[in-house]
């Protein structure tokens, strides 16, 4: 299996790489190391040709050689009649720095020429994330700029995958005097385009196994102010008058009040297994890798529960315990999307004990673990959580198209063995009371949530 994570890179390091690479290719040193315009090889060439042809013409007494050199003499003299002094600058402006997968990205690169000599060519080179597909060109654009003017190039593209993509830095190689002088501007800083994941819409009809916090949409077992009728009971001092059930009171000849259960919100912990990735990401229109599936599913599940008023927190299961605090509402949904931009595959040992000790898993929370079920640490974490009596659902994020590479006669048999072993492991998890379901978008968790709710009613230890 090949790693599919090539989209998420540090913006700064990627930008630095780009500048270093570009400058490594250039024959001239960086702009910061030299003050201004430098003659190009073309100017040397023109002088060499003029000198050789003229000298031969004079030495051999040949007028035709002088005529041959005339275009070079006139062209060079005309080009050099005014030399550039002012230094051009380049700026980069993004249309918007937030978008969704598949959405448009616009950037405006502008070269300003404060000098009186026009720029015959200004070549703008923009470092662009591989996940931004440009509609025109491949990140390098050439334009001419008049004297004391500016010229802008508007680049449009499409963000093909979730993540924090970079646009820039932009380097401008400017040429004046018919490309006889060159100046490389200081780079315009890279900008970050935050691209949020877009998943299949998710919905689940089932109630949560345990509601916890005050306020929300789920029925709790505790009496209190709520919409769910639990019964009627005799009036007690302190009861609100609007709770009086007049029909029952008339019949019983004493005051009765409606007894309701309080509405509570539930807490959902979305646990992302980031220990391993598999499959190659094809972007928003292509095939999904494990990480793509996990991130898009997390976004969809979080949106669903946050819309219902529940509290959602996110947690990475990997060598580091990266966590998003629980929260609710639209603002928290945006925080969740922002948090997801930082999800990446982390090498190292994952530990379920550290997970349980971290305090990030409240006892009554529904834990939805999104995992490809590919390594032992994930399996043992699931088993450990089930043993600890957590309300747990495992979502299988291994895409169906992901297969090991076949490079030998035994590969097919090895794959079959591997699949059988994985099915065995999933079967064992189910025996331990961990419902495992393949991610399938809307309604895909309904059945397992129903099971978890039913089992939670009979006590934690039975799960």
């Amino acid at each position, binding site marked *: 299996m090949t790693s599919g994570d090539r989209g998420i890179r540090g913006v700064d390091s990627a930008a630095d790489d780009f500048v270093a690479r570009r400058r490594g290719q250039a*024959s001239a040193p960086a702009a910061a190391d030299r003050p201004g315009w430098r*003659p*190009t*090889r*073309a*100017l*040397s*060439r*023109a*002088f*060499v*040709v*003029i000198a*050789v*042809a*003229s*000298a*031969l013409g*004079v030495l*051999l*007494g*040949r*007028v*035709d*050689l*002088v*005529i*041959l*050199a*005339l*275009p*070079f*003499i*006139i*062209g*060079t*003299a*005309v*080009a*050099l*009649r005014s*030399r550039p*002094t002012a230094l051009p600058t380049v700026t980069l402006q993004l249309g918007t720095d937030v978008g969704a997968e598949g959405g448009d990205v616009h950037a405006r690169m502008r070269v300003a020429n404060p000098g009186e000599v026009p720029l*015959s*060519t200004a*070549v703008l080179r923009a470092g662009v994330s591989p996940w931004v597909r440009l509609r*025109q*060109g*491949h990140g*390098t*654009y*050439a*334009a*001419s700029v008049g004297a004391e003017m500016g010229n802008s*190039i508007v680049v449009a593209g499409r963000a093909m995958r979730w993540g924090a993509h970079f646009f820039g830095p932009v380097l401008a*190689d400017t*040429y004046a005097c*018919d*490309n*006889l002088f060159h100046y490389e501007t200081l780079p315009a800083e890279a900008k970050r385009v935050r691209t949020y994941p877009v998943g299949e819409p998710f919905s689940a009809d089932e109630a949560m196994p345990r509601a916890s916090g005050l306020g929300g949409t789920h029925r709790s077992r505790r009496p209190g102010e709520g919409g769910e009728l639990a019964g009627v009971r005799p009036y007690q001092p302190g009861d609100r008058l609007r709770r009086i059930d007049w029909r029952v009171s008339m019949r019983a000849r004493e005051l009765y009040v409606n007894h309701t259960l309080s509405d509570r919100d539930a807490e959902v912990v979305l646990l992302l297994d980031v220990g391993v990735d598999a499959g190659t990401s094809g972007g928003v229109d292509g095939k999904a890798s494990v990480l793509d599936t996990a991130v898009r599913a997390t976004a969809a599940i979080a949106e669903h529960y946050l819309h219902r008023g529940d509290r959602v927190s996110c947690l990475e299961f990997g060598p580091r315990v990266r966590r998003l605090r629980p929260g609710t509402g639209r603002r928290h949904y945006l925080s969740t999307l922002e948090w997801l931009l930082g999800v990446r595959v982390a090498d190292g040992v994952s530990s379920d004990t550290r997970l349980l000790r971290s305090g990030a898993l409240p006892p009554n929370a529904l834990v939805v673990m999104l995992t490809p079920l590919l390594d032992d640490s994930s399996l043992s974490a699931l088993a450990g959580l089930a043993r600890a009596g957590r309300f747990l659902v495992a979502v299988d994020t291994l895409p169906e198209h992901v297969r090991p590479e076949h490079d030998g006669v035994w590969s097919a048999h090895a794959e079959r063995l591997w699949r059988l072993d994985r099915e065995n492991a999933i079967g064992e998890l189910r025996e331990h009371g961990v419902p495992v379901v393949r991610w399938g978008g809307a309604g895909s968790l309904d059945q397992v949530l129903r099971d978890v709710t039913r089992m939670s009613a009979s006590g934690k230890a039975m799960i």
Partner: protein
Amino acid sequence: MNDSRLAQRYHQGRAWLRRTQPGAMAVRTSVYVTGFLAVVTAAAPAIGAARAAGFALVLPILPTVRPMKVWPTALIVTCVAVWALTGEHSYALAFLLGALLYTHHTSAAQAVTMRTDTYVTPEVVTGWARRTGLVLLAAAAASALVGLLPRLFGRTDAIAYGLAGLAAVVGLGGVLAWLVFRKL
């Protein structure tokens, strides 16, 4: 080279071809075509048109592929040297060769500024073509003037011509040096 490496090269080639942009490729084509025609024009009087065309097919490849290196200079100087060694030619042919070499020189200078996948706005190419065209027009007028000089003053005084030419070259060198190194 095994099959996988060949396949890799093939895919790299296809990817490169997909990325090429018409404007940048037009400039590269100009480098090659002017180089080809210049070699044919310079070498045909010496070795015949067919053999010259054979050389001309090969020689401009390096200036086209690596215009940032010394290859365009080498091609131009070679053409001038071959032209000088094969005796005096007509002024019209000399101007034609000069025009071809100058266009080769400017298109190589333009090609240096851009990679083959650079998206080139039309103003860059039209501006380059306009500047080159104007220079060639001025050069044509100047060539006609230079060609007329011997008729005006006769062809007898070779020493005087030599001295005048030497003075012109020195003066020209001085002017160009001043244009480059003057303080602004």
